[in-house]
């Protein structure tokens, strides 16, 4: 069961066939997409006051830990958003990439 679940994004997208540096690069890019999608949704949810506070926070300390600590306090379903965006990217990428070069 775990092995099935563990059919990970790296294998699915064939990233594991690349040299190490390229693997890092590819995952960094995919992570950046999820990060941005999450942030976009977060910005849609935050109140104006929270947004102001968040803006000040990232000006002062753009550390991801601090940012996510803040956001998880303001957005109870933050983890769901992250899951959804990561899953969306994985699902979409898989669906498309599996159809290419069949």
């Amino acid at each position, binding site marked *: 069961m775990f092995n099935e*679940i563990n059919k990970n994004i790296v294998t699915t997208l*064939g990233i594991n*066939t*690349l040299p190490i540096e390229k693997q890092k690069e590819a995952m960094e890019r*995919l992570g950046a997409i999820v990060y941005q999608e999450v942030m*976009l949704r977060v910005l849609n949810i935050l109140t104006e006051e929270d947004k102001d506070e968040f803006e000040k926070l990232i000006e002062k300390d753009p550390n991801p830990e601090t940012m*996510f*600590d803040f956001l998880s306090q303001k957005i109870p379903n933050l983890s*769901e958003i992250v*899951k959804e965006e990561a899953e969306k990217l994985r699902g979409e990428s898989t669906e498309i990439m599996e159809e290419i070069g069949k």
Partner: protein
Amino acid sequence: MKEGKIPKSEKTKGMEESIAKVESQIVELNNKKEKERAQIIEKGKNLGFSDEEINKLLTGEQLELDSKLIQSQEEINNKDKTETIEENISDEEYKEFIDNNNISDNILNDIVDKIKNGKQLSSRELAIHAANTSNIEEKIKESDKKIQDNEKVESATEKIHITNDEIENNKDQINVSDDMLREGKEGNEKTDREQNEKELEQEHRSHVEKKVEESREEYTKEYKKCQSEMDRQKLIDKTRAATFNILAGVKNIFSKNKIEYQKSIKPEDYFTDKVKETQKEYNRARIEMGNLMFAEKKAELEKSGLSGKELETALAKYKATEILTKTIVEERQKIIDSKITNEKQAIWKKLLDGYRKMPRWQRVALSTALFTVAAGTGIATGGVFAGYGLASMAAMKFGTSMMMGGIVGNATKGIDLVMKKADLKFNEEQDNTKKELKEKFSKSEVDQEEYEKEIGRLELMEKKRARNRTLLKAGVGIAIAGIAGHYAYDAMGNGLHHVDSLQGSSVDTVNGPDINHIQHSPVAGLTTEHIPQHISIEATADHGQGSISMIHELQHNLKIEYGNNLENAPESVRHIIDTNPEQLSQEFGMYKPGQDAESAMIISGSSLTMDGHGNLIYHDQGTGNSITLMEGSDSNVDHMYGGKMSNTDHSGVENNITDEQKVPEQIDSIREEQIDTSDKPIYSINLDQKPEPVDSDIGEMAEENNNNFDNSNQEKSVIGNENTEIEKSVGLSEESIHHVHLIYEKNMNHLFPENDFNHEWDNVKDKIPGTLFKIEDEGGLNDTYKPLVSYLHKLQEITNIRPRESTIFDPIPETNEEYIERALQKAQEMGQLDKVKL
């Protein structure tokens, strides 16, 4: 045409005939002019025009006729100019030709070259040509036959710009054989056909791209409508649920059964069918684009002779890089960009700035966290983040704060179990090494000093391992807290896998993760500020590099890793980043200028690895030995390179072909292995030829480079190599890259010949091209750098690639040095390297 002595008067015979022909044309034009004047006057009078009006008409005609006359006169003048072309055949050579009709091959080849390049011949050359026409034509034919590459034919035909009609009309003047004419026509027809095919392909591609664009726009429009509403509803629902459950808990304090708020928001409630339809359409368009790219690449690779498993592997890599980038990453980025509304602009910019400022390890750690949070839904990142093991753990720390449920796993319990297997292996290896060492010592094969040093090293490894175990358990305990049970454990296992073990493996969920490769100690407190900033940055000599080039690559990778954030970097990292690669190479004993054997002999696959503590380890692929050159606590070199040195050039490269590997079947197995394990370097070994000793090849290359050699033959041999074609699809071969590097060095020496003294190039090589372009635009460019900037423009023009700028994905822009190297490699791929040689 007869060959032999010719009278001197004949040398200009052809010229005189041409002049006479043009003069007769002038007479003809004059006659025509007079006839036309008479006709105009007659017509004008018949139409009732005044003399003045008729004169105007005549003036107009006159202008036209005069222009034709002027044109004819220019032709004569041009013909005359051939008489004044600089003579490059010496009196002695010409006398030898006149007296004995002896012509050196060099002179004949020069004439052939001039004819092929459309250049005018000097009078002596014309005479020689007249006396040796058949010989010269033969040489031209031979030369043409060698050009079988379609691209070259196409390129040559484009240069000539002659249509079949023009060839037919000028058949006499061109003075070529029927065979050549036919070949020329066929070549043109083939070019036309290929051109048409290209145009059709281009048209098809534009059509697909348009489809992607339109479907994306449609999808984005619909998606935005729905997502916004769903997020709003979800937040309301969460708040409602929390309130309800508190109230329910209060009401049921005497009840064993907890009442849960049941309502859940489902995406299908908010995402309309229209969104789904548009998304499907968009996905279809992207699949079409991907398949088109795939088909184009496949055709290209097949054309270059690739087939079977090699073709499959090359295509898989192309798919995982270019196609993934084009159809997924770039498309998603466009969608994201389209979602940035005006009111979000300011905060979005700050978010991105913050992201860009993160060092790479932190960005990768963040990615780890994001995918790890999603691990509960079956997403995991695999071992790709292994190099960031500790960072990943820390990243998960904040990742875990996002997890609902707060199930604290018992992961630390698993550590000893997991380590047990690795321990056994480690202990066994240690024991064997010690035993072997003792035996050697007892046989006096190693001296006491060396023996003690080696034993000390082994003991240190054991101590480090024990310390790591303790800290790892602490780290895992902290990091795992809050992650949902086995899913998280599983994902973490992935995160801990070393990249080397990644190939084709998934996590062994029975035995747990293999953390044998972990060399680094989690630090108490475990926050991203305090953890070691990387676990392993590597530079591998898989591109034909020598020590200097390898150090340069390591510097580049470290810069990407750390960005400007060097405060927490080990001293050794800072020393490496701040020091000239050549100097470092000397410090490590890998480059000893002035000595006969001046350069370390670097076997392909050897590597420099900077571990998380800042220890710099050189691994020699040839011997399998590793040596710690530097330890992280300071900038001193602790151990010097003690391997073989070579007397090639200071790049000191040797391919990974040992005597044993020269046996064909073993080469086969190596090659196969390299294809399967794609993170390993791909070697350029031609299976059809017995490999020559590489030392001499490299020596020759270096020698040839020093002598400004014509490398055309070299390129041909590279192009003709079957294996090279594999690599061509995914990059250049090792040999090609080395060759390009030599060209790079030669070009830079040409641009900055005094660099050794005044460091003109050293001063700007790490700057970004954009800075120079800006200074140029502002008119403030120093004369010293004008040739460099012109060269940068030329590289852009020929290769059509631009210097990489800072992006969200890679905040470190490309330097002048990196861009020039990359552009030269691209030129090599395109077969245009000659055009960018200086």
